[in-house]
């Protein structure tokens, strides 16, 4: 279903969404002073520029930028920040505008993705707006901390690649999957906690491909090749600079001792104590008091707005009730539910509860599940359901308003 726009004009929605997002996320951006992590990112990127692309140890264009002591910056953040510094003429460091830009990209990509999944411009627009008005997304799009929105554009591209590939009628299946594979591999460069997302999403991709069926090795081969090529610089870097491993991937992914002794690593990762504490942290990430209704936050907003809870549950229920057989016909459903359930897994491995920046990948999956719920409710007959949808969306807008007002108020 569309909303009265021609196919060509439909894409005019994207710039409109982008302008709205930039306005909402960019308002009063510098009213709040930089925190320690942001200041570090700004100063390191400036130093990198000043030294002609060399780090403090004299390495030219290092993959991970040493930020003193045991701190390292992920390449995605360091080089994006350096590029922004290069282009900016403002006396204020422009690093926060990078995350605003990431937020804008997310919203635009969500429109494309949801329009594609649900074959509806209206649902695509609603999904994009739901993402735009998701408190956690808005908050982290206004902050250039070490964990936040950095991996989300890549995540959306990966999702889009898989969605297009799952559509057997699409003429771009192979290139789409290949681009998705590049994006999935590039997650390793985006932020510390996203390194673990690479194996997680690679596994999820394989399951979706298996569920989708009807593909040949020749369809998947380019994706595998570019996936490996994208990760190759990482392998090369660690071969050349082994001393950088313990404080980067040794901390974010697999401890050096466990790389040397994989069996011991496996034992440690699967010990009862580890599994118990990780499972408790993982479970906590789904607490309604964290996801939807945080009494300690402005406007009682959690990661999502309260009305999104109902839509999200409706979406999840629709997918689970449709049964495993339906997933063969609609592997994207499996992707949405699987992605939503897996998203906090990475954050949980750090065993720290409710660190939203690390678990932010849950947001796009949550928004898409909510849109799936909306689609289900909309498809049922009766005016009451349409009134319900309208009420939920109005309530969401109101709650966001109160949350946002407090956000800006606190900053000023």
């Amino acid at each position: 279903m569309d909303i009265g726009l021609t196919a060509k004009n439909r894409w005019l929605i994207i710039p409109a969404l982008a302008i709205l997002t930039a306005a909402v996320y960019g308002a009063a951006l510098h009213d709040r002073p930089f925190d320690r992590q942001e200041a570090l990112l700004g100063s390191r990127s400036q130093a990198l520029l000043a030294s002609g692309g060399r780090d403090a140890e004299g390495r030219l264009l290092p993959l991970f930028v040493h930020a003193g002591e045991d701190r390292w910056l992920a390449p995605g953040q360091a080089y994006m920040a350096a590029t922004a510094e290069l282009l900016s003429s403002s006396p204020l460091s422009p690093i926060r505008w990078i995350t605003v830009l990431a937020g804008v990209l997310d919203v635009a990509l969500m429109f494309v993705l949801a329009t594609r999944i649900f074959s509806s411009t209206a649902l695509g627009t609603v999904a994009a707006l739901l993402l735009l008005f998701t408190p956690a997304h808005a908050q982290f799009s206004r902050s250039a901390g070490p964990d936040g929105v950095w991996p989300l554009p890549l995540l959306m591209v990966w999702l889009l690649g898989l969605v297009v590939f799952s559509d057997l009628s699409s003429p771009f299946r192979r290139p789409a999957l290949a681009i998705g594979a590049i994006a999935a591999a590039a997650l390793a460069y985006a932020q510390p906690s996203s390194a673990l997302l690479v194996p997680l999403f690679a596994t999820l991709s394989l399951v979706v491909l298996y569920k989708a069926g009807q593909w040949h090795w020749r369809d998947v081969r380019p994706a595998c090749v570019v996936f490996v090529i994208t990760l190759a610089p990482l392998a090369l870097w660690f071969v050349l600079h082994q001393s950088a491993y313990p404080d980067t991937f040794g901390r974010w992914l697999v401890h050096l001792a466990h790389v040397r002794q994989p069996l011991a690593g496996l034992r440690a990762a699967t010990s009862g104590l580890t599994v118990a504490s990780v499972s408790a942290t993982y479970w906590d990430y789904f607490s309604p008091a964290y996801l939807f209704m945080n009494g300690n936050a402005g406007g009682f907003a959690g990661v999502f707005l309260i009305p999104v809870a109902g839509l999200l549950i409706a979406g999840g229920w629709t997918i689970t009730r449709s049964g495993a057989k339906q997933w063969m016909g609609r592997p994207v459903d499996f992707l949405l539910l699987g992605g939503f359930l897996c998203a906090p897994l990475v954050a949980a491995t750090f065993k720290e509860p409710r660190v939203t920046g690390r678990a932010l990948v849950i947001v796009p999956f949550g928004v898409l599940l909510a849109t799936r719920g909306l689609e289900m409710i909309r498809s049922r007959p009766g005016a009451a359901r349409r009134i319900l949808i309208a009420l939920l969306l109005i309530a969401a807008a109101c709650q966001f308003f109160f949350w946002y007002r407090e956000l800006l108020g606190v900053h000023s």
Partner: protein
Amino acid sequence: MPHADARSRPLWIATALVLASSALYFSRLASSPPYLSIEEITQARHALSLARTGRSLSGQRLPLYPAERGFEAGEESLGIYATAGLLKIVPFSETVVRLPSAIGGVLNILLMFFLTRRLFRSDAYGAAGAVVLALTPANLLQSHIGTSQILVGTFTLSWLVCLARYFDTDRRRDLLLATMSLGIGIYTYPGALVVIPLCFAATLLLLVWRRRRLAYPDLAPACAGMFLVLIPWIGWHLIHPERLRQLTEYYTHHGYNQDLGFDSFLTGRGLNAHIDAWWHSFSPDRVFFSGDSSLRFSTRQAGYFLLPVAPFIVVGLWQLNRMVEPLWQRFIWGGILLGPLPAALVTQDEFKRWLSILPFVTLATVVGLRAMLAGPRTWSKVLAVVLIVVAGQQYVEFIRDYWTDYRTRSSFYLGGNLPGAILQASAMQDPHCVYFDFRIPVVSPYWDIYGPPAAPQPQVVDVESREFSVPPSCPSASVVVLAKQSLKPALQSRFTAPGWAVERIPEPDGRVYYNVFQWTSD
């Protein structure tokens, strides 16, 4: 007409289940947990008082809610009267205090057999349900705690059994029995005050849903059953209207509801705590790995349910709509999701508050077991068998730990061997010359149980004070102090003087928490 063997088979199975579970559940009742907790001591004191004098500790004659100073609202009485009844026949022991709970645990297993048998129309799955519940760590652990919380599960189960019979036969007598047995549950544990009304409301809703109208011939016996059983409750609260206020006051303060009172339902922080308490009740860590955080209620080596049962529960809930009638689907989902409501209301999520969930989770487990064993795939059958074997192995580990190492780990949290210290201290000639250091918590209630009959309460003093000394009028004296405290030089010099001897009170592993210094004038 069914063959005689087929008709008697359920009875044989039920008898076998009762005998086997009794052997397990009544075994080491006095020694695991190693000592009576303060809550069990309170129940035991009420029971002893009622058995001896027919009056509660506060002097009321056969009260419905025996009260004492500090908890004027009074305790739920079913377990207390059961213990008092036993004490009329046999002398006091830890086993007697815990026996009503253990009987409740065995009854749960028996009732689970009849419930699953009726739902699945199979003796084998009935037995499977009973075995699953028997091998649930939480059912055993809570059956060994003498405060009767397990009885909430027992009466929830008896309600479900009668209700299942009613849904099969449409005999209204069963409906009456269902709500009557549900109503009795309100006299077992405070958490029942939330659970029982919910279950009763669910009964009425399902009766309406089943007939698609307000069917008064069904609703009348349901309401009558509940009303009949609640007559004493209503009468008591008419005479003592302050009780509900006292109860509410108690459970909105004293560490409950974050001490916020009713504000906990009106503030963001309070609401968060309620929602989190509900959500965390289902945390896999607690449910499958380590149970309650306190060693008083958990071994911390196993969850409420065995870990290999987790896949059965997940598959069971997933396949519920395929394997069970819609009515029972609602019961199971509702029972599981609303089970932790008492815990959520008081923001204290120990399992003892939401034991009504046990039958519903067990039913989900049996559904999962059946789905995997009866499914078309060989791998799922093999997996089910492997999981059953692993579950058996985990239970053996659990029970071995519960009977041995757990006693050592938990003794500190149950106050240590204070009964041993009291028995040793009161062995002296003159009961007036027994002293306890004030650093030893809650001596008085334990003295009521373990001290000599009719002996005066011991004197609680600061043993380290210079003013403390045994009066010359005492021909002999006992002074009980914490073992770590007696290492202090001041005490060492005092108690190594002539005439003093020390008796170290051993814990299950030989460690010592209490020293009893005994003095005789000889």
